[in-house]
């Protein structure tokens, strides 16, 4: 990843590299120039050395001739050696410009040395006059050498003239180059640094801007930063945070909306219930009236009417109070018997009700008004439409840990489709229609499922034309939860 640190390091490295490169070039160049200067100076010094040592030789020769002594002779010899050494070095300075003069020069030195030698030899041979002549010649030669040194230096200057001018020009150009290069590098570095710092600070600025917007509560602006360093990572994280917050807020908003709608619905429901209650006749008045009617019928000797009215009153009372809490199976069976009594009065011979109840099982707890609607359903579908009537069998028996309640009729039965529709509560016929208690089959199923927390509480076995069998499987002990 291209980090900010890496960026800074690379900038430093580039600057350093440029500096080092320039330094190397200039140093190399200067070194070369220096070498050249040294070479030239060396040439001049060597030529001067010849001139000086030749003069020195003449001086020591003079001393020797004035008063010969071995030490002075060795002086002369030393100077001669020095001159010959210088001559050797000078021989290397030959170039196209000075070739002729240099050869002359070298020969002149030879002549000087010859004259010196001759002078010494003649002096040894006591030929003083000739020795002096040779010494004079040596003196002249030494003078010529000095003059020729000047000539050589002149030639040297002439030969190197172009070269010297070149060097001077070079150094002027070099100075110019230095100024231009400095200007260029300064300018480029300023630009580069500006651009570079921008590449670091601009994402930060934009991030700051985004944070400010966020803090003002605007969560919908997308944060996007095209950088390739940590800042972009930061920006991405920041953007994700913004999206999360946005989502959370919208979730909370929908929840709040839902809740408010629910509340409204509840209020409406309560109101409608209230309305429906208001529209009903006071049930106690109805019971009392029914009681009074029953007594009156009894007193008038119509026993059957009296019983019938009592049953209706009991059914009605049960109906009113038992809906919202569990009852025992015993109570259910009792109300069932009241209901059957009423229906028998209505259908007389057509309704044949068979009851096979294991009395030990009647303690089982069960939601109120669950069995009566099922029976009523059987009456509606298996007795009412048939002229000859039918049989409804009601069984209660034990089976392992459960109590099985079966309601069987001999009616027209129903198809598999219809069964599953009923079981899945998709049978949306006008529920409770025709039911005395206003409670339909679907209602019963749902309440049973909720009460026991099990799906297999009820089963329906039926075939078209062969009757229907509803089986309730009630656990003896109601499971916790």
């Amino acid at each position: 990843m291209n980090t900010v640190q890496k960026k800074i390091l690379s900038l430093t490295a580039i600057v350093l590299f440029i500096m080092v490169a320039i330094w190397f070039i200039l140093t190399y160049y200067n070194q070369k120039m220096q070498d050249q200067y040294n070479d030239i100076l060396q040439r001049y010094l060597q030529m001067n050395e010849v001139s000086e040592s030749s003069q020195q030789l003449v001086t020591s020769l003079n001393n020797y001739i004035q008063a010969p002594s071995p030490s002075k002779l060795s002086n002369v010899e030393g100077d001669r050696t020095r001159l010959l050494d210088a001559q050797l070095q000078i021989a290397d300075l030959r170039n196209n410009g000075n070739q002729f003069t240099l050869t002359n020069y070298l020969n002149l030195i030879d002549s000087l040395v010859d004259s010196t030698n001759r002078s010494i030899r003649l002096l040894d041979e006591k030929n003083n006059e000739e020795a002096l002549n040779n010494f004079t010649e040596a003196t002249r030669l030494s003078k010529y050498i000095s003059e020729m040194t000047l000539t050589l230096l002149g030639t040297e200057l002439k030969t190197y003239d172009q070269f010297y001018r070149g060097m001077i020009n070079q150094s002027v150009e070099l100075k110019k180059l230095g100024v231009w290069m400095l200007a260029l590098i300064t300018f480029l570095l300023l630009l580069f640094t500006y651009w570079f710092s921008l590449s670091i600070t601009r994402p930060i600025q934009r991030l700051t801007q985004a944070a400010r917007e966020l803090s003002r509560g605007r969560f919908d602006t997308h944060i996007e930063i095209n950088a390739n360093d940590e800042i972009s990572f930061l920006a991405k994280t920041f953007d994700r945070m913004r999206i999360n917050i946005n989502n959370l807020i919208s979730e909370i908003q929908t929840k709040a909306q839902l809740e408010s709608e629910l509340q409204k619905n509840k209020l409406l429901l309560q109101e409608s219930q209230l309305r429906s209650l208001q529209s009903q006749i006071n049930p106690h008045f109805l019971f009392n009236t029914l009681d009074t009617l029953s007594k009156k019928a009894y007193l008038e000797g119509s026993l059957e009417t009296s019983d019938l009215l009592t049953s209706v009153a009991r059914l009605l009372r049960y109906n009113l109070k038992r809906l919202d809490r569990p009852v025992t199976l015993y109570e259910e069976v009792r109300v069932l018997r009241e209901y059957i009594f009423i229906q028998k009065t209505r259908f007389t011979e057509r309704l044949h009700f068979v009851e096979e109840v294991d009395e030990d099982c009647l303690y089982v707890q069960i939601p109120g008004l669950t069995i009566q609607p099922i029976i009523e359903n059987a009456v509606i579908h298996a007795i009412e439409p048939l002229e000859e009537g039918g049989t409804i069998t009601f069984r209660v028996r034990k089976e392992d840990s459960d109590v099985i309640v079966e309601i069987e009729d001999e009616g027209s039965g129903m198809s598999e489709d219809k069964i599953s529709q009923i079981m899945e509560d998709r049978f949306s016929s006008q529920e409770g229609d025709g039911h005395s208690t206003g409670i339909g089959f679907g209602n019963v199923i749902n309440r049973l499922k909720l009460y026991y927390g099990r799906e297999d509480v009820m089963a329906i076995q039926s075939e078209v034309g062969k009757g229907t069998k509803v089986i309730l499987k009630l656990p003896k002990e109601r499971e916790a939860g």
Partner: protein
Amino acid sequence: MRKLVIVLLSAICLVLLGFTLSSFIHVFQNYNLSAPANVGSTNKTGYRLILITQELDTPFWDKVESGASKAAAKYGAELEVWGSYGANQEDFLKNMEIAIASKVDGILVQGLNTDEFNQLATVKAAENGIPIFTIANDVPIEDSLRRTYIGSDHYKAGQMIGTQLAEDLGQKGKVVLMVSDRQEDFQSKRLNGILSILKFYPNIEPITVVAGDTREKVVTATNEIMNKEPGVAAFVSVTANNASAMVQEIGKRAQLSRFHIYSFDDSPEIKTLLKEKKMSGIIEQSPEMMGELGVQLMVKWLQGESFPLKYDGYYTDIKLLKADELP
């Protein structure tokens, strides 16, 4: 705005870059810090020859020099011209001595008939085995031991002038022969040449006048002789550089056309005078040929090709230029 700034910045950048690059190229392309090449210690070309004259930078010697340089280039010899100005004998002799001490291979020298010159030539040069050729001016061979002479045949030149004189004067008249006080070999040869002709014309009376080297001395000498001998009919400037001064002085005193004036010199100044018909005739020499022939002979002699040399010398062309014959 932003675009403008960017354009401006890049322009500055480009300008700076351009200047830097051009400067860079200047510095490193012309970068040639190598000194003039040193050659090996061995002598790559042939002989080292030296041409020594007393009259450096005169038209005559310039021509000698150019001829010699041409020949030197042709034969691959190295030639250097040394010399002194205004016939400075001391410097001239010093140059000789240096040349000998420098052990050059050959010396071409304008002869100078003095003891010092002869001593140098006979003793020193011979001692070092350096051949000496005289050029343009000769010295007697028995004094100097010079190998040969390259230049005009001055005796013959004198004869040519003498013949012309006799012709122009019509065998009668006084002739002034202006000579230098320096006893130069070529001067005496020219003089002898003139006299050898004039002796056949007894009526022509030659008057030898010795003048100095300088202009003033020439002017004085001319004045004196014109005072002393009003009937002079012709002047001959035997020595090299006296003619113009002489002509000028004569012109001041009388009509130039009255006189026959001759010179052995062919400097541009003299040639102008000749064209203006202020002079009757001059001897034209071949300085370039002298230089060329001198170097050529020297090289050949050093190579052992032209041996033996003619002791009398090798004469170069001379020609008498007459004013009447000029276009």
